[in-house]
């Protein structure tokens, strides 16, 4: 079934799309008149075939891409008519784990992980202990001064996740966050997401790992033919 804003709960959605269309060029429209709303504190898996547009949809959510038309609201705020400063403040409320990890190669593990806090102007004395604890929890406690090029794929992914959650965002958006880690670490990371969700963070994860999705009792959104449907992974 198609998901529309009429079908969501009464709570104000944290992400809301109204008649959103996305074009790559003049002829190719990936999404057309998309309506969608994401409840606060929900935990959602976004699935779909490779190339269905999962990453593009996520980019709309974390403001890395503007739609060709339509309306996007984040936390009730119309992002397209917002000032640049407001959009940047909104971004600070969103943690992002992208497929390519987007790490800065010459910064250490610790510096990469704490980048959102540095960019927000926090003093190191406020976050150093918590950030080290978080990095230890994701298994990077002994690699604080290591540089990303020296990390394995799994370690880089865990670092990207640590950076996404370090400032306790209201929404966590992850694109294939368990793609490069072993199943045990994958489950551990998802338990971290579930824990964050229990404390109020809205989670949306794009994945094609059906086994992992089945283990967690979460909403499932599927992209099929440029439309969003809610339902089973199968």
């Amino acid at each position: 079934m198609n998901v529309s804003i009429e079908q969501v709960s009464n709570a104000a959605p944290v992400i809301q799309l109204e008649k959103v269309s996305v074009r790559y060029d003049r002829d190719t429209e990936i999404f057309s008149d998309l309506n969608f709303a994401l409840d606060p504190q929900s935990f959602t898996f976004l699935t779909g075939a490779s190339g269905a547009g999962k990453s593009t949809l996520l980019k709309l959510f974390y403001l890395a891409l503007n739609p060709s038309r339509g309306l996007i609201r984040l936390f009730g705020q119309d992002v397209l008519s917002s000032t640049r400063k407001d959009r940047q403040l909104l971004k600070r409320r969103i943690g992002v784990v992208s497929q390519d990890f987007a790490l800065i190669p010459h910064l250490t593990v610790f510096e990469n992980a704490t980048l959102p806090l540095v960019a927000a102007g926090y003093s190191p004395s406020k976050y150093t202990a918590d950030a080290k604890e978080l990095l230890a929890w994701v298994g990077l406690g002994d690699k604080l001064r290591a540089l990303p090029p020296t990390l394995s794929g799994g370690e880089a992914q865990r670092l990207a996740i640590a950076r996404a959650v370090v400032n306790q965002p209201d929404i966590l958006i992850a694109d294939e966050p368990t793609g490069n880690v072993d199943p045990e670490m994958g489950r551990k990371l998802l338990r971290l997401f579930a824990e964050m969700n229990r404390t109020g963070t809205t989670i949306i994860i794009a994945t094609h790992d059906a086994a992992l999705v089945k283990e967690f009792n979460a909403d499932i959104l599927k992209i099929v033919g440029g439309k969003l449907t809610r339902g089973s992974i199968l």
Partner: protein
Amino acid sequence: MSDPKPTPILPPGQAEERPLFVIMVIMAFLATLTLTVVLMGLRQSASWQSDLKSAATVQIMTDEAGQVDEALKLLRAFPGVKSADPLSAGENRALLSPWIGELSLPEDIKIPSLIKIQADLDTLDEDALIGAFESAGIKAEFDNHRQWSRNLATTWARMRLALLSLLVLIIGATVAISSFATRSVLRSRQNIINVLGQVGASDKFIAGLFVKRFMSLGFKAAISGMVLAVAFISLFVLWQNLGTDENGYKLALKIGDIFWLIVLAAAIGAISAFTAGRSALGTIRRQRPG
């Protein structure tokens, strides 16, 4: 684990920055050279103007015996004249050497006698002095050097304008180079800009990274260029002064000049940082959706 000094978010020593550094050193060198010429010229011009304002020449147009002595007596007694000294025959001939070189003039060609006087020409009553010569029957011409002074002032004003225009051009080129280099570094570090944008860094925060980087680079380049230029000028001054006798044109670099050169270096560093910040902000705003 003790926390080490944080790594700069923009990595230093990028390949794009090296040519910029060299070009900025050259710009600072040229700017320092230009400003030094302006400062030395200002000082020399003021000195010449001052000399011309307090000196005049009286030319005795006849070789009748006693005319020079009478003129000297009159001048030394005239109100406002501080001193009056005749030029020797040798000095008179030396004045002609720019035109005739070392050639000896035939004895029957008479050269007018010259008397150099020191006086405050602003208060000296020149008409009364000329009248006094006429009354005494002395055929003399009084030259107050005003024409020279005016020509000198006009020439120097034009030269100063040209040099200051050159300085403005050099600073303009520095601005253009800084702007171009900032865009180049921005392009090469697009990945970092994207990550910073993703974690919610403001445009100002990102532009601030470029300001810091280019301020440091600009100051280092400006100081290097200035030091090289001062060394070059010092050698030139030494060379010029060694080859000049006491009556010649001697150059000097003063402490006051160094102060203005430091101000210039600081200005080049600040301009570089300001331009980098503006260029970075403009480029980021064009590139990023927000």
